[in-house]
Structures are given as C-alpha cells and as structure tokens.
C-alpha cells in the first residue's frame, strides 16, 4: 500500500505538512458556517422591533464560568502538544486528559443551562432571540462533542502511533489543537454576543 505523503515532514512547495494545510482549509469552511449564522443574528437583531438583553434571559455567571473552562481547555490542549515536542509522553497524557475533562465540564454546564431554559418553558420557538441562541450554542456544542471524540481517540487507542511514528503523532495532535482552538475562538465571540449585549 502506498504511504500518505508529507505526514511528518513539510511539503517543499507549501512549507507545511499536508494535514496542517488541510485543517486550515477545513477551518476556513467552518468560518463561513459560523459567519453565516452570525450574519443571520445581525439581520434578525437589526430587523427586530425589540431585542431582549441577553443577561435578562441567560445566566452571565454560568456563561462566564464556561468561557473560563473553555479557555483553560485551550491552554491544556496546546500544553499537550508542547509536551510531545519536549518528548514527555506522561505529561501529554495528563494535559490531553485535562482537555477532555474540561470539555465535558463545558457540556455538562451547557446541559444544565438548556434544562433550566426548558423548565421555564423557554424553547427555540418561544422567541427569535432563543431561536438564534439555541441554534448558535447547539451547533457550537456539536463541535465540542466532535472535539471530545477526536481528542479521546488521541488520548486512547490513537496514542499507539507515538511509539512507531512520533513526529506524525505530534502533528496529529497539533492539527486537533487547531480545531480545538477554533472552537474556543468561536465561543469567545458567542459569549458576549448572546449573554452580554
């Protein structure tokens, strides 16, 4: 079977390994996906006769806590990659494990938030604000779940590659990190837009 080229070394014409360029192209498409929804938010808000203040419907302390959790998970993610670069696999396991744990904390808190809204009969169909809130945060949560699946694979069975192809494994963790930081970046804008404005 033919080997996949440039998984560990940089391709001469691009200067980066293939997975990195591919991941950035994927992230470009993700920017357009969330961009379309942010654009919808602006249109809905500008076109609405009245728009509620996010803090009157959503819990700012809970949103702030979740923002800090996601920022912390971004740090642990980049630290897991840095640990591999420093040849410290034990630390990689700890930091990647923490990243997954923090992502799960984010999801659990989000579930409580959703349950609280539903228990107060606040559903996506209740108002335009809630419709865009559930759409944006729901799509973001799906991205978190996707990240947890990928990171869990690299923490669990996928880690075997470290023994045979350490460079390639380190690159895999780096591109998984690019995706994870993007998910964090989206939340950095979602939090003030939905909770504070």
């Amino acid at each position, binding site marked *: 079977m033919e080997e996949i080229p440039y998984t560990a070394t940089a391709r001469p014409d*691009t*200067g*980066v390994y293939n997975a*990195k*360029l591919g991941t*950035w*192209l994927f*992230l*470009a498409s993700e*920017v*357009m996906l969330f*961009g*379309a929804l*942010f*654009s919808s938010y*602006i*249109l809905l808000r*500008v*076109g609405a006769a009245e728009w509620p203040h996010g*803090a009157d419907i959503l819990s*700012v302390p809970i949103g*702030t806590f979740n*923002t*800090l959790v996601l*920022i*912390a998970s*971004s*740090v642990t*993610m*980049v*630290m897991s990659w*840095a640990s591999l*670069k*420093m*040849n410290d696999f034990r630390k990689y396991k700890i930091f990647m494990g923490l990243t997954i744990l923090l992502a799960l904390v984010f999801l659990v808190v989000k579930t409580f938030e959703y349950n609280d809204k539903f228990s107060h009969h606040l559903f996506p169909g209740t108002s335009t604000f809630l419709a865009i809130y559930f759409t944006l945060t729901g799509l973001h949560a799906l991205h978190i779940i996707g990240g947890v699946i990928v990171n869990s694979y690299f923490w669990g069975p996928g880690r075997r590659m470290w023994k045979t192809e350490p460079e390639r494994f380190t690159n895999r963790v780096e591109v998984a*990190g*690019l995706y994870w*930081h*993007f998910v*964090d*970046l989206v939340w*950095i*804008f979602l*939090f*003030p*837009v939905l909770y*504070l*404005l």
Partner: protein
Amino acid sequence: MKSETAEDIKKHVRVYVAVFVALAALTLITVGASTLQVSTGVHIAIALLIAAVKGSLVASYFMHLISEKKVIFGVLIFTVFFFAGLLFLPVSDLSLHSSMKNVP
C-alpha cells in the same frame, strides 16, 4: 511553524501561561464592561473589541499564527475576505431597504 527544539518549546510554555492569564482577565473585563451605563452601540463596540483582542491572542499563540508559513496566511486572506462579505453584504442590503421606506 518553524521546526523548534525542546528548549524553544519550554520558552513557549511560559507564553502560553501568560496568554491564559490575559484571556481570563479579558473575560472578566468583558463582563465588568457590560454593566457600564453607556449606550447599546458603545456596549457592542467594547465587547467586540475585547473579543477581537482575545481571538487574536488565541490565533497568534495557541494556533501558532505568529510563526506560520505564507501558504496558511494565503488561505486566511481569502477567508477574511469572504467572511467580511458574508457579514456586511446583508447589512448593507438592510440599510438600503430602510432608506427606501420613504420612497413612494
């Protein structure tokens, strides 16, 4: 990103911790700023400005854009161009419609 030694990465780790502290502080500043008695427009400007600074920190340091290759910036220039179009074209259309309200 350039190929770096373990010693270089150790230096980066200190930067990552500093960025984390900055991001956490900016999050709390965003929440504090939202309680200021200013107009909605000023609130939006402050919140988006802080979010842009936080986003830049994440992209520059955690996503290594500060030391990335030209080809990645090539992808990003196209992305920024189309993203801006996606955000501003509908808004300009909306302002056009609102200015036409008084047209008989």
